[in-house]
């Protein structure tokens, strides 16, 4: 056993003091470090004497494992351990919503890349060489790869005991057989998008003398990782301690386990610290992606453009394991009308098991897919009605008090029509460029494919709806511990949560809240770990809302203790006291003391949770629910594109956004979220797709899985409005996901506007613009 309990290269400490309370935009404490390349990510973790772990993965999408021979690998010099499912100490099963995933495959592999065995060795290359010496005999089976067939064809093999349907959810409202003057329909498909975070999956596990293990890692949700890992390790929670290390992006891709159980198994088995870091290609196999979808949509409207009905059937390919598939189905069906009032609705959603790569959480979960379809439909309907597409959206837009097709009434502002109006009023970019044009402004960019030949311009709009926080009855809460004490004569607050900073700026927001609530200059952030209560995931646009709420609650509790002390000492009533600029102030007698004086040597520490309003499940037959989502968020985009119609290349010229954020706790961070989200949505519109063929990923690299560069990212005017939600802390509304969702359909609508094409698949590639004869094989 090692006596080391923490790594030499530790999780990044963020000691830099920031300034500013809520509503201001202090510089984030990790910003400069990240820009300078000095930030310590989880892949930088290091412990003396550590071993390196590596994972043997299935080369087949679907196969029976006949035998595994680890002998030759164990005999390889430098190898300390070779483990298989037989070495999983606890239950060999985990999963976010449904426990259906083995930590290491037993008798069957269900996707290419599924972990089969583990190696620990003294060098990463030794570990990889040893992997090649593990002999696995497979009986290769015909993979299930078509999700629509998986939904309806009982002759296909059942990949899991309950069959291939992970979840089926219908939602029915009004008269589903209503008739309308004008009807448009189409079948839309959306490709598999990757989160494309830059920091690969990585962690360092250090075994402890108590038989437990400490894991330092990058994740989105410490406690859910801890619970699943402890179960597989057969250890009580207190013996499986997780500490956050620098996270290099997440976007949903770190919500499922990757190396957590494996790294701990190797450390416990060898008694030595073990580090695991995935390479880029392995990372493409080692995390879930966005569900690809096939969506049948039909919209009916009156001649005046009022929506009469929407009928939709949607299929989501969850791949080999369930992960977040049930939630994708509920989000997609419950948000599948878009932010519109529709009297008659029948929407059905299926989430399926196949032998394709597993799909799970990604920014805009389950809302991205239908938004592409319903916003395509709204443009198609506008065309059929010969109506302005913005006006069509506005006359059907929901507003506060509207009832959605689930029966849920919108109980807070929903300024959908206003967002569109504001966008419409923004100035348009110039059409006529001065000659000779700078090729960087044209489709093809620096690649110099056109000097204006074949280029046409188009404009497209979209507006979308997204739920914020977890839904359907989940007790979605967060915990914060706040400590107030005097250090060096100055009152200092320490905020301790398990909430993951994944780049969104939560570290800054937590400090801003504590500064505002406690009126102190210095606020420190404790490293995130499992020594404090659950914070839930950094997903669903929820952390400023939920963890922000917990920090606020804990600060208020600390303040109450402080006021009680001050009241006792100075003969004041606690109710009369407030904090201003480091001082306790009475509404009757004015400044009564410095916070530091009141505190003296005392330390006030309070832990509080924040629970949002209760939500309720969708009825399994009707899809009705009094409150399926605690909050909705809305964003609208206007895209301007230039399309080289001969070569099928697109330049997004401008991507403007209007979004309601309730309350901008950190206005610069809000704008940054919208810029980043819009760019990720742009990726899905014109380039980002994991190409899967027969269960195999054809482009598992950043050479062939393309994400936007700065040259693809257009100028953006971002119009942020703040209509407070009375139910949320400070009135905040989730920010991070909506712009990802609305950017994609706005861009595709703009390409349609330029070309007149139907474009029923996103991302739109040259083959879709130039014609099916050019489809990639």
């Amino acid at each position, binding site marked *: 056993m090692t006596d080391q309990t923490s790594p030499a290269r530790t999780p990044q400490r963020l000691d830099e003091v920031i300034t500013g309370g809520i509503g201001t935009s202090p510089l984030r404490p990790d910003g400069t470090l990240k820009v300078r390349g000095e930030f310590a990510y989880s892949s930088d973790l290091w412990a003396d004497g550590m071993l390196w772990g590596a994972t043997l993965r299935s080369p087949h999408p679907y196969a029976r494992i006949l035998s595994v021979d680890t002998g030759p690998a164990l005999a390889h010099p430098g190898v300390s351990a070779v483990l298989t499912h037989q070495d999983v100490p606890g239950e060999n099963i985990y999963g976010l919503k449904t426990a259906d995933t083995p930590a290491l495959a037993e008798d069957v592999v269900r996707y290419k890349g599924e972990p089969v065995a583990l190696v620990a060795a003294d060098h990463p290359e030794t570990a990889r060489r040893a992997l090649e010496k593990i002999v696995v005999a497979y009986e290769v089976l015909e993979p299930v790869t078509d999700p629509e067939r998986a939904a309806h064809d009982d002759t296909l093999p059942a990949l899991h005991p309950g069959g291939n349907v992970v979840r089926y959810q219908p939602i029915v409202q009004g008269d589903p057989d209503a008739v309308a003057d004008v009807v448009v329909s189409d079948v839309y498909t959306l490709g598999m998008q990757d989160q494309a975070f830059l920091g690969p999956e990585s962690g360092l596990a250090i075994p402890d003398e108590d038989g437990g293990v400490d894991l330092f890692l990058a994740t989105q949700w410490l406690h859910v990782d801890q619970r699943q890992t402890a179960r597989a390790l057969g250890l009580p929670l207190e013996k499986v301690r997780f500490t956050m290390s620098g996270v290099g992006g997440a976007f949903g891709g770190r919500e499922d386990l990757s190396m957590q159980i494996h790294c701990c198994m190797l450390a416990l088995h060898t008694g030595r610290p073990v580090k695991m870091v995935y390479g880029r290609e392995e990372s493409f196999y080692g995390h879930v992606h966005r569900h690809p979808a096939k969506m049948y949509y039909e919209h009916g409207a009156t001649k005046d453009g009022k929506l009469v009905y929407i009928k939709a059937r949607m299929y989501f390919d969850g791949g080999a394991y369930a992960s977040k598939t049930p939630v994708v189905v509920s989000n997609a069906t419950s948000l599948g009308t878009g932010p519109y009032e529709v009297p008659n609705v029948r929407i059905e959603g299926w989430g399926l098991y196949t032998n394709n790569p597993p799909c799970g959480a990604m920014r805009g979960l389950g809302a991205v897919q239908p938004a592409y379809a319903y916003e395509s439909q709204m443009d198609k309907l506008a065309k059929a009605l010969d109506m302005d597409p913005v006006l069509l959206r506005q006359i059907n837009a929901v507003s506060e008090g509207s009832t959605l097709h689930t029966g849920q009434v919108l109980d807070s502002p929903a300024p959908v029509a206003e967002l569109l109006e504001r966008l419409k009023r923004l100035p348009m970019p110039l059409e006529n460029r001065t000659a000779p044009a700078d090729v960087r402004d044209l489709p093809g960019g*620096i690649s110099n*494919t056109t*000097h204006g030949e074949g280029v046409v311009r188009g404009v497209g709009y979209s507006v979308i709806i997204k739920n914020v926080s977890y839904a359907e009855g989940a007790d979605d809460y967060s915990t914060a511990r706040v400590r107030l004490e005097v250090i060096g004569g100055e009152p200092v607050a320490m905020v301790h949560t398990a909430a993951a900073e994944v780049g969104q700026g939560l570290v800054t927001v937590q400090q801003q809240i504590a500064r505002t609530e406690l009126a102190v200059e210095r606020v420190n952030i404790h490293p995130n770990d499992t020594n404090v209560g659950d914070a839930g995931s950094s997903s669903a646009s929820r952390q400023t809302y939920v963890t922000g709420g917990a920090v606020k609650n804990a600060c208020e509790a600390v303040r109450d203790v402080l006021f009680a002390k001050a009241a006792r000492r100075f003969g004041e009533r606690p109710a009369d006291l407030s904090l201003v600029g480091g001082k306790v102030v009475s509404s009757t007698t004015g400044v009564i003391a410095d916070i530091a004086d009141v505190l003296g040597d005392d330390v006030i520490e309070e832990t509080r949770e924040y629970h949002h309003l209760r939500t309720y499940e969708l009825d399994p037959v009707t899809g009705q629910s009094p409150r399926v989502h605690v909050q909705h968020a809305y964003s609208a985009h206007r895209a301007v594109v230039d399309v080289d119609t001969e070569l099928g290349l697109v330049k997004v010229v401008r991507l403007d956004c209007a979004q309601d954020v309730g309350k901008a706790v950190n206005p610069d961070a809000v704008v940054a979220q919208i810029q980043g989200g819009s760019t990720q949505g742009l990726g899905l519109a014109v380039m980002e797709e994991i190409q899967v063929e027969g269960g195999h990923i054809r482009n598992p690299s950043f050479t062939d899985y*393309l994400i936007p560069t*700065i040259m*693809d990212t257009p100028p953006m005017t971002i119009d942020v409005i703040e209509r407070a939600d009375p139910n949320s802390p400070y009135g905040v509304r989730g920010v991070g996901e909506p712009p990802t969702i609305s950017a994609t359909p706005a861009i595709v609508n703009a390409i349609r506007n330029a070309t007149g094409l139907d474009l029923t698949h996103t991302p739109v590639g040259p083959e879709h613009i*130039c014609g099916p*004869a050019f*489809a*990639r094989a």
Partner: protein
Amino acid sequence: MEFLRPSTWDEALAAKAEYPSAVPIAGGTDVMVELNFDRHRPEALIDLNRVPELHTWEIDDDVVRLGASVPYTRIIDHLTDRLPGLSLAAHTVGSPQIRNRGSVGGNLGAASPAGDAHPALLASGGRVEVASVRGTRMIPIDDFYLGVKRNALEEDELILAVHIPSATAPQQFSKIGTRNAMVIAVCSFGIGLHPETGTVRTGIGSAAPTPRRATDAEEFIAAELADAGLWASRGELAASTAQRFGELVAQAASPIDDVRGSAAYRRHALSVMARRTLTWTWNEYRTAGRAAA
């Protein structure tokens, strides 16, 4: 793995003679990717970064002698006038970081059909100066590419420089990728006008096992220009001529279907790029003539 660090050209040649399987490393933008992806574990690396003559260029008469390791950024900054086609191609290579390190010598060493320098070199013409302890030889660029990622170097040879004629007339380079920067070519095309010989040279990238010229297209356009006396008159080029040229370029390719694009799209895109770049170069040639007149 051995790491050899010669500080002179002769030491580098001696090292390569002694370790023929050793992999030379210049900017490292190909080599390091191969190593990091675990695709290749050479017995030895020969670091060429200390050899001074690889990093310089000379201009003799009408030929630029470009040291093998001169990075793309310096070509763009210093040689755009003389090597406009190569400079345009250099602009499209990777990102600023890659252009600061990557070199034409490395592109030739890797000999990937997708290398962006190749169509430009084929279109301008030139010779690759290679050497070994046995001596030096000049390989015409047309004979340099032998197969997918295979070039005409012998085991013990290294590339010292590329001799490229200075442009006497407009050149262009164009490349297809599904993003607006930092993209491997789906296919690419280079073109150079050579009025002194009455020829037009071309280079096709990423649409055959090797970079190659479109000879039929070159012969067609040379004949068209000669027959109509256009080199001297600098008259207008008929749209149908540019169109036909494009078709012939597309025919010269033998592309494949792969994850980056289909063979059909590659052919189509080549015909469009060839038509457009011919038109650009010809119009520029005409304008230059009028300016001179």
